[in-house]
């Protein structure tokens, strides 16, 4: 079946940037109450760029793989670029059709990243 393409399974079973950071600039976490997906995301930021990224979590293949794929994409990016990174770009990277029932899984990590950036902006002010 298409949803569990090689790319998704690879990131689920061998997640990139997996593991917590020692001294993150910011930590955010969230969960999907219905299915029990959990994610925690650490970022260190230097000169308005994402210098390090790490996550930990448990849940379905889509939620965990999407987080892994997202971390690869935004590492070393400027906060401005990370902020403008869109859902559609993420869907493109996932490369599989996400049914309405799985949107929350696919976007759990994405919403975490957005939450982190909002908090970082608040801190900066």
């Amino acid at each position, binding site marked *: *079946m298409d949803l569990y393409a090689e790319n998704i*399974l690879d990131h689920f*079973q061998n997640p990139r940037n997996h593991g917590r950071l020692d001294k993150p600039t910011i930590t955010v976490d969230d969960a999907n109450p*219905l*299915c*029990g997906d*959990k994610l925690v995301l650490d970022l260190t930021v230097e000169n308005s760029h994402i210098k390090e990224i790490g996550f930990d979590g448990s849940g*379905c293949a889509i939620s965990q793989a999407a987080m892994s794929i997202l971390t690869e994409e935004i590492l070393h990016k400027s906060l401005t670029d990370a902020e403008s990174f869109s859902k559609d770009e993420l869907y493109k990277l996932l490369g599989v059709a996400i049914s309405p029932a799985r949107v929350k899984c696919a976007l759990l990590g994405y919403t975490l990243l957005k939450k982190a950036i909002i908090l970082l902006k608040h801190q900066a002010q």
Partner: protein
Amino acid sequence: MFDPHLVKKDFPILSRVIENKPLVYLDSASTSQKPQSVIDAITNYYANSNANIHRGVYTIAQEADAAYEATRESVKTFINAKSTEEIIFTRNTTEGINLVAYTWAEQNIHEGDIIIVSALEHHSNLIPWQQVAIKKNARLEVIPLSRNPETPYLLDMEWLKKYLTENKSVKLIAITHASNVTGTINPIKEIASLAHSLGSAKILIDGAQSAAHLPIDVQDFDCDFFAFSSHKMLGPTGVGILYGKKNLLEEMPPFLFGGDMIREVHQRDATWNDLPWKFEAGTQNIADVIAFKEAITYLTNLGMENVRQHDQKLIGYARAKLENIKNLKLHIPKNDTDMTGVISFAISGIHPHDIAEIFNSENVCIRGGNHCAKPLMESISVPATARISFSVYNTEEDIDIAIEAIMKAKKIFNIS
């Protein structure tokens, strides 16, 4: 016994084919499918007898009235209540439980009192009591799961006996008859007897998962309240039933106020209607209540003892197959007789949500998640489970197809 292959033919949805695969429905713990007779009864009411009840003098109003009250009579017989005065129609099990929380508990739970629930509760029989406890400054206690490895997923009855012996201010035990996650059947007759003999606690049973699987006899159980839903027992959605002992219902204030629940109305005050109508304010879900009678008739014709036997046969068949699958863990009691047809399982390396998704690719409907029982998930230390659940229309072939779907999931995820 009956032949589930013949039963299946009475349920039009089960002949659906999607992408060349027959629909295999293994999520009846969530909601059951409906036989043609139930579907026809809804159409027939709207096509021939649509009128409001308890009001009109004309023929179709009288037909609607008689049909609505006939369902109440059927429910009374089905659960062996003493009288139809004890049968209240609600929207669902949750509303029945809330009715008791807002009326009986409002009058009878005071500061320092104790309410007991169990570790196996669905949120619907937990949150209302959490709220009562918070509002009244009462205490909420939980019967834990047994720690004896011989009796996994059963409640620790010794804990309950000890607790009831030592604590005399227990006012209510609110407990599920059967778990929607592990299938566990709780010994509610024994619990009711303990509640009544070791103190003066009342007992409310959440029968959402049992009414379609086990013979129900509220007089034999000696329970004070019993709440259940039509839609989990072959009937329409939007109909719940609350049974309560007459003397308790008489003492309780109304739940919702408005039309039909009143006797006399003056500009500044009013008095209440007789039981059970005191608890049925406003226009009811007439069509679905009327159609619910057909669901009861269907189950009664099969015979609840036979339904139970069929359930046991499927549990035994499924358990034997599932136990042989590597890296699969069952979250159910050891003995088939301790459970209804609800089987939770987990496969290491595959999240239940993914299992359910792969089942769907085979057109097999199952649930993956926490099943509205988050505290139970914590008790058994899993984030979620995959769950298959049976009804009268399920066959051994359905289970075979489910087993194939499990093998497919393991293959996709490369799990040995």
